[in-house]
């Protein structure tokens, strides 16, 4: 995808037939990206950070998180699945790690690889990066695509603090594509590498990566979408458990808290934060240099980390407990990271400097922005201040702003309209 393209791809789609215009989504959006207009929700693609709050809250299943179709597999000679760590927390406890992994082959993949394989390597890479960038404190994790986009939008001064290296699934993609090309004599575009992901943000990141220098994945499949099919294959596999390498120690990647504990060491102090509201509060404090005592902050938009993603089927706390059990009980397969270390040394995992997306500002010119703010405040004094969202904007303030920006009218306020009609009645009576 062209990096200069200003139109943002998003994995969230509104199904107008299902949408009742109830405004539930409008109220939970952390970047105020949603408005209800003509009784249908609309997402502003420039503001959306793919957090999935709207998907979770919608009572009418009107916001569909899109992921790719498995039909894509037929376009390639050799297909690889890279599975997100949170996948393994989605099954009942009688389903072993190995069985859950083996079942993925039945979807049509030639190879199944795991994000968990590179967790240990990632931890070392993060530590190395933190030590090499002493001038920047704290370093902020960049694995969560929503967090990266939130920083571009609302905390642009913190962009240099982001860990400017690829996320584990992209590192694996880079490594595997070259390895398979060499081993099988296939061309780059004959190999299909796909992610199995816990959230819509990862689908967006596959289709519109930020800062990627090279071709990464060819598609992303939602855990929720493949879950039904996988379950059937699991039933068949239960009687003949496979012998297959697993990497329980690496499953920590799905849990933001445990990941911070792993990075934390004698000379590195790490903090873990999850949930988009908490993330925003912490970023605001980082911005004011109140958290400079931390060397590294793990930031995840979802509850408990990736186990809280909107594509998961299991509750994030139950999934977390299962994953912790697997980490404790499992035996780790050997991973040879020498090639990865070499690639890292050559700077192959570097990410281009991330750029701001200043769309929250009222105007590019500060004087005009102040004039607009003045107008907003004037309009605000006439609005009822109930923040009821019935107008389709999240708050009275947002409505005032929409009016000033020419995106709404004062008549959209239902409460004012009712007051005026009562006054009219009194006058007429």
């Amino acid at each position: 995808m062209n990096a200069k393209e200003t139109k943002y791809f998003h994995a969230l789609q509104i199904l107008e037939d299902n949408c009742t215009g109830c405004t539930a989504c409008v109220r939970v959006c952390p970047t105020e990206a949603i408005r209800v207009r003509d009784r249908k929700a609309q997402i502003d693609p420039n503001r959306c950070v793919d957090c999935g709050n709207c998907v979770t809250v919608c009572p009418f299943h009107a916001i569909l998180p899109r992921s790719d179709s498995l039909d894509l597999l037929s376009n390639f000679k050799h297909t690889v699945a890279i599975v997100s760590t949170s996948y393994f927390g989605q099954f009942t406890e009688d389903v072993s790690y190995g069985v859950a992994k083996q079942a993925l082959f039945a979807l049509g993949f030639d190879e199944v690889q795991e994000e968990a394989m590179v967790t240990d390597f990632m931890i070392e890479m993060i530590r190395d990066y933190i030590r090499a960038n002493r001038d920047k404190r704290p370093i902020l994790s960049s694995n969560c695509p929503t967090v990266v986009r939130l920083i571009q939008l609302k905390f642009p001064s913190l962009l240099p603090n982001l860990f400017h290296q690829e996320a584990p699934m992209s590192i694996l993609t880079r490594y595997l594509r070259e390895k398979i090309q060499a081993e099988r004599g296939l061309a780059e575009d004959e190999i299909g590498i796909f992610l199995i992901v816990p959230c819509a943000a990862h689908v967006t990141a596959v289709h519109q990566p930020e800062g990627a220098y090279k071709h990464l994945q060819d598609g992303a499949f939602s855990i929720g979408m493949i879950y039904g099919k996988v379950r059937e294959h699991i039933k068949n596999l239960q009687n003949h458990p496979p012998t297959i390498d697993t990497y329980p120690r690496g499953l920590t990647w799905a849990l933001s808290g445990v990941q911070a504990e792993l990075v934390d060491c004698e000379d590195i102090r790490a903090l873990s934060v999850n949930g988009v509201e908490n993330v925003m509060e912490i970023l605001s404090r980082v911005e004011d240099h109140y958290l400079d005592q931390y060397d590294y902050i793990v930031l995840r938009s979802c509850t408990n980390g990736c186990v809280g993603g909107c594509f998961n089927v299991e509750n994030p706390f139950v999934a977390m407990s299962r994953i912790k059990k697997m980490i404790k009980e499992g035996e780790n397969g050997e991973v040879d990271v020498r090639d990865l270390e070499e690639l890292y040394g050559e700077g192959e995992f570097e990410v281009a400097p991330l750029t701001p997306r200043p769309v929250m500002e009222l105007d590019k010119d500060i004087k005009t922005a102040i004039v607009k703010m003045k107008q907003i405040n004037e309009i605000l004094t006439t609005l009822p201040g109930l923040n009821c969202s019935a107008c389709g904007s999240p708050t009275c303030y947002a409505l005032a702003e929409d009016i000033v920006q020419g995106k709404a009218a004062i008549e959209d306020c239902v409460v004012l309209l009712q007051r005026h009609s009562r006054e009219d009645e009194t006058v007429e009576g």
Partner: protein
Amino acid sequence: MQDFAAVRSEMGEFWNIRSGLEESVKGFFSAPPEADVVLESLIPEKDFNTAGKGSAEVKNLLKRLGVDPEVLRRVAVAAYEAEINVAAHSRGGMMDSYIHSDLIHVVFRDKGPGIADIAQAMVPGFSTADDMVREMGFGAGLGLPNIQKNADALHITSSAGGSTVLEFLIYFANNER
């Protein structure tokens, strides 16, 4: 702090103006123009849950205006420290932010009991915070010095037993260096 000029302190009043800005600061205070946007916020006594809300609001507002991130951080830190000071040391007060096209003027007025010796209060590490305040992680004696460091102009008037007024100016054009 050698790059600060016009440091003058006497019982009851304290001025500190970043060097090079004396003229424009004097001009501002001799005839304060009407602000374009005003933001008011209440600071209840010893309420550390509420303290900080006013400065957060100001920061969000300046962000919407597109103020330089470094200037924004200075405003946020100065306002936050001053807000905490009012909550920790006074019987509560008010924070009023006046936004002009080129600067922000923030005024904190409290209900006493006043600062006995402002010069002493400006010394890093000096604090009169009580045990409760210290237990909550405040009272390190860095509040006022931190405000002074970040503001382009700082003005405090106070007397023992009376109320304290602290006000600061920060220009939007990044002039820290």
